[in-house]
Structure formats: structure tokens, C-alpha cells
């Protein structure tokens, strides 16, 4: 589904990604861990098509398409979804309007008819239960004045409505309380099927207790320096990143 080959990228002259290789197949859950500033969000942004980054080398193939050549909205319509580490506020635009516009753009792209207001509301109400979101948030401006946890839930609600092929969750767990973490993780789990995949960026094992990864990768200084199964996350939790740093240093 997604192949990242030797991806090197910089921002404002700083080399951040220094040769990423990653292969994701349908039905898989991958977790990316790694110290602050190692390039996790950078990778997520580049996959989503955020401006300002310069790709210096490598390629990204998504469903047979050269992802880096597509505009951000085209990637989204093709099924790439990014749950933002810091969701953006859009004053004046209601959550409903925003989400309905997004869904209908994506449906148009997929050759489906646009949903009218009624059908849309029925769908959203159903999806809201999945993340146990307060219905009053629907009528409010996108993320404006939302608490940290509400913003994160809203990201997952959007994911649940838009049904992406590849969902990239950038630290969706940060800001969620213990119960919310469970709810949201279960929500993501219930959206899982054999045709879609999830790439989850996190610092903590507790999310992975619920959202069990097939693979765990450690991103350090712009490279994936270690990959393993879910036990790698437990090891990191126990030992921290020092041993990774040493190992990475040795291999240089």
C-alpha cells in the first residue's frame, strides 16, 4: 500500500529525514516511536503534502501512485489521512460544514453521490458514538476553543467519517485522559479492516496496549534505526532511548 524508499528531506536548510525506508501493507498497524525532534511529525507532514519541506531524495509510492507528485487534497481524496499532532482551529466554520464539505469532496472523487444534510447527520451521529464525542461540538467552529482532548477526539471523528485507506495518527494519545485514550483506541480499532492501514506515532506504550501494532519502528535522527514487533515498544518503555542512541552511533 505504502512504500517509502530512501526518503531524505529538509526544511529551511536543515536536514531532518536522512533516508527513511518503510513498507506498509493493507491490514497492518505500524507504530513509530522515537525521541523528540527525531523527525516523526516531519515524516507525517511530508506524506500528507505539507508545504515548506524539500524532498532531496527517495520516493513514496502509495497504491501504485507517486504520492509526492499529488497535491495535498488529492492525497486526501486518494485515502491518506493525517490526524494532526496539533489540530488547527478554523473560526467561523462549523465542524458540520467542514466535515460535510470534506466528505463530499472525497465521495465525488470516489465516484459516489454527495450526501445531503440529513444523510450526513445520520452518518456523523453514528460515528460520534464511536469516539464518544459530545454532540454539541458538531455545531461549534472547527477546533476553536476545544480542549486538547476534544481536539484529538475530533480528529478521530473526522477519520471515522472520511474512512481513509491509510491513517497517520500523530501523537493522537497525547492530551487524552485515561478513559478517552481507551475509547479513542477502540474507535480506531473498530475502523480497522483488511484493506486499510494505520501508522501511529506515539511516545507511550499505553496506547499500544489497546491499539496493538504489527510492527514498531524507532526513528532516530532522521532514520529508522530499529524495527521489531510489539515487544520493541515494551523494551523502549523499560530502557528508554539511550541504548538506541549508542547503537545508532556505533553503526554510523
Amino acid at each position, binding site marked *: 500500500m505504502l512504500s517509502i524508499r530512501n526518503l531524505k528531506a529538509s526544511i529551511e536548510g536543515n536536514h531532518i529525514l536522512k533516508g527513511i525506508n518503510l513498507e506498509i501493507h493493507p491490514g497492518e498497524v505500524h507504530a513509530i516511536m522515537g525521541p523528540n525532534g527525531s523527525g516523526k511529525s516531519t515524516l507525517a507532514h511530508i506524506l*500528507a*503534502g*505539507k*508545504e*515548506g519541506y524539500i524532498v532531496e531524495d527517495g520516493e513514496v509510492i502509495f497504491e501504485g501512485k507517486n504520492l509526492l507528485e499529488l*497535491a*495535498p*487534497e488529492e*492525497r*486526501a*481524496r486518494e485515502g491518506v*489521512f*493525517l490526524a*494532526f499532532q496539533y*489540530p*488547527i*482551529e*478554523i*473560526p*467561523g*466554520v*462549523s465542524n458540520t*460544514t*467542514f*466535515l460535510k*464539505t*470534506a*466528505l463530499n*469532496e*472525497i465521495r465525488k*472523487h470516489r465516484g459516489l453521490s454527495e450526501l445531503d444534510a440529513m444523510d450526513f447527520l445520520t452518518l456523523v451521529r453514528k460515528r460520534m458514538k464511536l469516539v464518544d464525542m459530545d454532540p454539541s461540538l458538531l455545531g461549534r*467552529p472547527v477546533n476553536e476553543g476545544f480542549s486538547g482532548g476534544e481536539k484529538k477526539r475530533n480528529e478521530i471523528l*473526522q477519520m471515522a467519517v*472520511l474512512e481513509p485507506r491509510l491513517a497517520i495518527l500523530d501523537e493522537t494519545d497525547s492530551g487524552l485522559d485515561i478513559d478517552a485514550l481507551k475509547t479513542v483506541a477502540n474507535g480506531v480499532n473498530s475502523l480497522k479492516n483488511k484493506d486499510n492501514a494505520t501508522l501511529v506515532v506515539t511516545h507511550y506504550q499505553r496506547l499500544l496496549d489497546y491499539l496493538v501494532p504489527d510492527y514498531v519502528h524507532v526513528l532516530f535522527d532522521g532514520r529508522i534505526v530499529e524495527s521489531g514487533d510489539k515487544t520493541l515498544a515494551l523494551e523502549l518503555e523499560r530502557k528508554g532511548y539511550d541504548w538506541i542512541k549508542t547503537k545508532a552511533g556505533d553503526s554510523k
Partner: protein
Amino acid sequence: MGKDREHIDSLTQKEYEYGFITDIEMDMAPKGLNEDIIRFISAKKDEPDSMLRWRLKAYRYWLNMKEPTWAFVTYPPIDYQNIYYYAAPKKKEGPKSLDEVDPEILATFDKLGIPLEEREALAGVAVDAVMDSVSVATTFRKKLQELGIIFLPISEAIREHPDLIKKYLGSVVPPTDNFFAALNSAVFTDGTFVYVPKGIRCPMELSTYFRINAANTGQFERTLIVADEGSYVSYLEGCTAPMRDENQLHAAVVELIALDGAEIKYSTVQNWYAGDKNGKGGIYNFVTKRGVCHNHSKISWAQVETGSAITWKYPSLILRGDNSAGEFHSVALTNNRQQADTGTKMVHLGKNTRSTIISKGISAGYSNNSYRGLVKIGPGADNAKNYSQCDSLLIGDRCGAHTFPYLEVDNPTANVEHEATTSKISEDQLFYCNQRGIGTEEAIGVIINGYAREVFKRLPMEFAVEAQKLLTVSLEGSVG
């Protein structure tokens, strides 16, 4: 970042959609302004002598006035002797129905997407179509007549209702009020007169479509609306003009009078030619709009301003009567090299008077958009209340937004609140929308319509839809 920048630029540099020129034989007065021209206009309109004297008085006053320079706009000096002050489509008699209207004119409305036939059918809207300076079609007049409502081209009203004209014309905006009002009083050629009798609720929205059509023809509209005691009327004004190279001057005057217990809603969608993206051409729009509220009456202004190269316009209200209320809801959008200096004046004179000002400026391209507002609480205005909210939204970083709020309070019981915000459509917001599948063009549309929603809510339904489209068109590729 560069790509988004370019994208925003390409969106904001859309060509004017409605640029075309209708070919109708014009009946023109020679260029320039002098007493003979005013006599010519007055004679053409078959006006009573008193009207001619009124015009001449205004003209003589105007001769000694100076063009105002305080607004935050710049433009080359206007040569008032290089303008035609009278132009009329040639015709034998006023048409009695649409069948009699010049097909050319109907075609013009067609191109604008506002065919009269359709409008007629739409939700009981009566249309008094003004083509250049002479009315070409008046519909629904009969139905209105049954209720005693007068809805006439002002030149007809001057002939047929001299008493009402004498009593109210110039009573809110006297000819001496300002430079452009004096000029208008001297040379206005047409416009609309509305009178709603006591206790009558006008059952339909009244609307007029203006078009400026003859090259170098200044357009001097005059609108007078009188709502008698306990009556109600909603009036819509909308306009668009053909593409032009030379600047066209427009100096309209609108006067509203709400007598005791009456209510007037006045809505405008203004989309005149704004000039090309380098600022060449476009309409100079110097408008004086003012209303007077008597006891327990209410006047609301709602405007969506997207056109004109220069806009100088402050729909104002004098809350003379006790317990009267005034509202001003405005969206002003400027793009490319457009300049807008617009706002309102709320003058509280009566007790328990209330006013609300909601102003939403949107600037894009290299444009400049200023809000200028005055809230004045007179010494007799006990317990007067005003709430003002002035927001500015910037698209790109080469445009300007300015706010000039003035406040004069001469009564200690007044309660005045002012809020102002400036925001920008950020690249992060656009990326967020993009990431959800919404293209940049559509994203800007969604954000802008959200931002201006409070004002759209105040417009009559069919106008709100049109206005929403206009904003999107003014910034995006195409309608719909």
C-alpha cells in the same frame, strides 16, 4: 509556502465576469456640468419649477464645496466637466409590461443571471429595473397600489406625488450635507421612491437593479423610502456594471425615514466593476446613505460590498425618537487594487435608543479595506446602548485592513461596547482543509462564508445566496 502563495494569487486575480457593453442608442446631454445641463435634466424629467430651483440651489452650493480628502483612499482628480450627466435609452413611452421592454435590456439582465421573468416569479419580488438613468420596467406596481404602497421611479414620484417629495426629499440628507450629496442633488436623474402607508406591512421584498452602461456617464441615483407609522418594508438593492477602461463616477444618495413604530430593512449587494488586477478602470462609488428613526422605530442596513475600484460609503442612522433601534451589518471585500473606506454612523438622540454594528472586512491582493465608524451619544439619549464589532480578515500579506472607530459620548448613562479582531487565513488552515480533501479554492470559500455568516443571516434568503456566491466569485475561479 511559495505554492500556496501563487495559488492564492491565481484565485484572487479572477477576471470580472460580467464585463460586457450593451448597445442601446443613447439620448445624451453634452459632457460637462453647468446650470443649462441641470435645466436640461429637469426639463427632460418634466419636473415642477420648485424641483429645478432645488437642484440649482444645490449646484450653486456645490460649486463652493471641496471634495473630501479624509478617507483612506487615493485616486486621480476627477474632472467633473468630463462627465455626461444625462443618458437615457431611447424609447417612445414607458413600457407597461415586460413585453414592451427593449429586448437588448432583457438580454443584459440575462447575461447577469437575473432575468426579470425569473425574478418576477421568485418569491414575490417586485422589480423596478433601472437601466442607466431611466426606469425601463416596473412590476407588481398594481398589487402594491391596492395596499396604497407607492413604489415608483423617483422622477415619476416627483411629478405624481409632489407633496411627499417636498416633505421628505433632502430631509435626511440635505443638499448641503457633503460634496457628493450636493452634486447628486443637483444632477440626479433617477432612482426609486417608496412610500408605505400607516400600519401596512409590505408583503414582498422591493428590489431595484442598477446598471451603469453609457461610457463616461456618471450615475446619480436618488432613493427615498418613507415608512409611515407602524408600517414595514424590506428593500433590496443590487448592482453590477460592464467592463470599462475609464473610471466611472457614482454618487448616490439614499434617504430612509421610519416614522413612529415603523421598520425598514435596506439590503445591498454591490458588485460593480472593480477595475482590472492592476487597478485600471472600475467604478468610483461615493455614496451617502442615511436614515432617521422616530419613536419605537427600527432601521437595519445590511450590505455586501464586493465591487467598485473605490468605495466611500457610510450608511448611517439618526436615532431621533425614543426607544428606536438601528442596525448595520456589513461585509466589505476588496481584492487586487480595490480601496474601500466604509462603515457607519450611529447618532443616538432619543432615550433608550439601541444600535448594533457588525462589520466584516475581507482584504486580498494589494487592496486596502478600512472600517470607519462613529458612535455618538447625545446628551438627551438616556440609557442609550451600542454594540460594535469590527473584524478584519486578511488573505495574503500584501493587503491592508484598517479600523477607525470614533466615539463621542455626552451622556453618562450610555453603555457602549466595541470589539475588534484581525485575523488571517493561514497556510496552516488551508493545509488542514487540503488534508481533509478540500481544495484551496473551496477552503477559502468555506472560511469566508463562515466568517461573514452573521451578516448573511440578515439578508433576505434569495439575496443571501446571491451574496454568498458573489464573495466566492470575487475570490475564486467561478460560481457554483
